[in-house]
């Protein structure tokens, strides 16, 4: 019995659940929320690659390439916003960042 598509689907489902739970449960540090987001994208990418390989169509892998690009851009801008937020508020706790000023 060799590796099947179901192996990869189950694996990425589990990883998705872990990171989704992490996003909701984590209230101490907004950085960890960003990292959970990266994990979420990783599990989606795993799904894309598995389907691409088992169907035999390369388009899914090209899609993963673009997702990686956008995720890198998102991480850079997200961290920049976070640095600014920390300069202004002196905290990264999710519950403390609860006010908008304008």
């Amino acid at each position, binding site marked *: 019995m*060799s590796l099947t598509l179901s192996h990869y689907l189950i694996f990425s489902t589990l*990883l998705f659940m*872990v990171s989704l739970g992490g996003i909701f449960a984590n209230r101490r540090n907004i950085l960890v929320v960003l990292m959970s987001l*990266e994990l979420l994208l990783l599990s989606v990418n795993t799904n894309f690659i598995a389907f691409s390989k088992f169907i035999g169509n*390369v388009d899914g892998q090209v899609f993963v*390439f673009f997702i990686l690009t*956008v995720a*890198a851009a998102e991480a850079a801008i997200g961290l920049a916003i*976070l*640095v600014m937020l920390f300069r202004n508020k002196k905290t990264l706790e999710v519950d403390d960042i609860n006010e908008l000023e304008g």
Partner: protein
Amino acid sequence: MTPELLQQILFYLFGAIAIGSGMAVVSVRNTVYSALFLVLCFFNVAVLWLLIEAEFLAIILVLVYVGAVMVLFLFVIMMLDVKKVTKSQLKSGYTRAAILIAAAMLVELVMLFAYRLQNQLPADELIRQGLEYSNVAEIGMALFVDYVYPFEVAGVILLVAIVAAIMLTIRKRPENKQIDPSKQIHVNPSDRVRVVSMDAEKGNGEES
């Protein structure tokens, strides 16, 4: 040991480490450890991608994510002087909600895979390619022939990200000897140097 068995063993080994380190990412107290566990998770998932012959993306994952994005994360974590978290990262009330949401989604996905998509999933056997097959060449053909415009748009997105990140984080420092480019452009030569024509002074004869 047959190759199939070896693949299974590698899949379960690295998959278990990946999920375990994913759990550590969301639950460990120290943010630096959390980032390092994320690096471990990326490495293990890259191995899983290698197992189904997606070599290019596995290498890209390690280079881009571990090499660039996670280093950025670690830099930011260590630069921001976050006060030490004494209690656990997780708050109990939120943890319960999170488990509930995750379980609900898990049930939905399992039902989707098990019942709705049962007959529509593609064949379970991976088509193994020969030695002359090149994953990079295949992706390159798709990327630069069918997806040229999205590829260039991706370049623009990265440029926008660079500009946005710099604009957000740059600080004006008082000791910085920066000059306003607009002022530089609008300077006339006549504002700086005035050429005065005047007769030469008569010497007193002392210097000759």
